[in-house]
């Protein structure tokens, strides 16, 4: 895979759900993106330096378009949220390893909060492979749920912290109702940790679970060694190179730290 550094033109800016922004750009490598890969996006905000990593929410081979879904947490995302149609984005990517979509039988996708950003493309690809797909969505409240239509062909189950929609509680609780042959997960590290615990309880093998990791990133290409994640058996994986999508069994969950949440 050759990494492309390129400017992409913003075609559309929308609000896919409460508190989130979706940017649609046209990009030369749209066709080459694997679901779960990410881009390092240049931001021009005052006092910032590094690019910001964002998953491709979806990409279209035919239209050459890529979508990014994000929320504003700091200076970089605030700057991004101010891009509008016609503006240019500085993209480095696609980067890292996407999800391994091989296999058959029911696939369960589980997203916590903005972790949902990676799934429109994942679900589309799984459905295209003719696999039965369940999309488990967790959010603080109903308004922050990405609409069901974004997951055509999948059965969507919902959980909210405040009970305003679906199950009142953690999205991980919804796992018990599923019988997955593969699980694809993305969300805050504590939620992934909870998923792994629940999987052990439900005797779902960790080898069948793939998680999309989030760590701070310097380069996104394997040169800074800043994105280490604890490897099972010792040492570290590089989230940007060995991931972001890795099998849960490859990680040492007892050493898993969380740079961002909780």
């Amino acid at each position: 895979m050759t990494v492309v550094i390129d400017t992409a033109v913003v075609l559309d800016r929308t609000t896919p759900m409460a508190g989130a922004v979706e940017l649609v750009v046209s990009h030369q490598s749209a066709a080459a993106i694997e679901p779960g890969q990410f881009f390092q996006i240049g931001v021009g905000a005052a006092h910032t330096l590094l690019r910001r990593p964002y998953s491709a929410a979806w990409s279209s081979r035919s239209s050459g378009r890529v979508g990014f879904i994000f929320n504003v947490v700091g200076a970089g995302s605030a700057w991004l949220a101010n891009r509008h149609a016609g503006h240019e984005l500085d993209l480095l990517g696609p980067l890292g390893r996407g999800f391994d979509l091989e296999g058959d039988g029911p696939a369960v996708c589980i997203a916590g909060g903005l972790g949902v950003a990676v799934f429109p493309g994942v679900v589309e690809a799984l459905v295209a492979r003719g696999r039965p797909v369940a999309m488990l969505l967790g959010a603080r409240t109903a308004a922050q749920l990405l609409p069901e239509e974004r997951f055509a062909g999948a059965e969507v189950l919902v959980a909210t912290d405040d009970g305003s929609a679906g199950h009142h509680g953690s999205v991980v609780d919804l796992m018990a109702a599923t019988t997955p042959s593969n699980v694809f997960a993305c969300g805050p590290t504590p939620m992934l940790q909870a998923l792994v615990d629940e999987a052990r309880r439900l005797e779902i093998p960790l080898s069948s679970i793939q998680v999309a990791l989030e760590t701070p990133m310097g380069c996104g290409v394997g040169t800074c060694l800043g994105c280490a994640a604890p490897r099972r058996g010792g040492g570290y994986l590089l989230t940007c190179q060995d991931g972001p999508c890795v099998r849960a069994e490859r990680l040492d969950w007892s050493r898993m730290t969380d740079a961002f949440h909780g």
Partner: protein
Amino acid sequence: MPSMADRPDLSVDLGRGLRLRTPVLVASGTFGYGFDAPSVDRSALGAIVTKGTTPLAREGNAPTRIAETPSGMLNAIGLQNPGVEHVAGEYEPTWATWDVRVIVNVAGDSIDDYVTVARRLNGLAGVAGLELNISCPNVANGLQFGVEPGLAADLTRAVRRATELPLIVKLTPNVTDIVAVGKAVEAAGADAVSAINTYVGVAIDVRRRRPMLSRISGGLSGPAIKPLALQAVWQLAAELTIPVIGIGGIRTASDALEFLLAGAAAVQLGTVNYVRPQAAREVCDGIADYMRIHGFQALRALPLRPSREVARV
């Protein structure tokens, strides 16, 4: 694009036969071992300086290893590297086939560590030179080699004896008098010095009420440190006779020219490689354009003050 015809001479001689086609190098820890960086045009690179290499493989520090700061970043990677055997066995043969030269950055906890790495790499065709990272703490006495002129000189002398390779000593700026250390390693046989390595800094995660980095403090790099690095280069270039390689916060050709005008013989680009992988090419072309516009034939004409060497002629 400037035509080759009127392209000024960008080659630079760092001593002991280490002649580079351009004065633009990529800095240790920001280009891996030359295999991972995005595939951009490398013809602009005078050399690739590798990640710090130790006798044995190292896992590095626990996360979190990096944090962004205003116009900068902190890192505490912990010298994660595959060890010199792997480097010599797996990487060096490929380097020998590249047209860009590779300088291995060497690290350790004792003089023996540095000597071991230097011996192992001596005489390998793929290795063009060594850069000693003397910012590492000496386990023997706790102090960094780089903060004490005597220690730095001992280390340099020992490595000098262990290899015929061109020897660059990379200075730490976390000292009262960087010139004293520079003079000490010059006297001890360094062919060049590179300045600077990172500045020690801290960032606190106010929301989670803990330091951002697992090791609490880390090394500050990026545009934020450029004026501090220029101060170090300005002083060193005036006091040393060996070449000074300028490092610190370079983003653009104008930044690189600041270092060359301050007396640097060459520059290294670090953090910018993460942000703009194409930076080295742009910096190289920008230096050539500047020289053409100002009518400079060679790099040695750029410094605002004649170097000691020239002065002595």
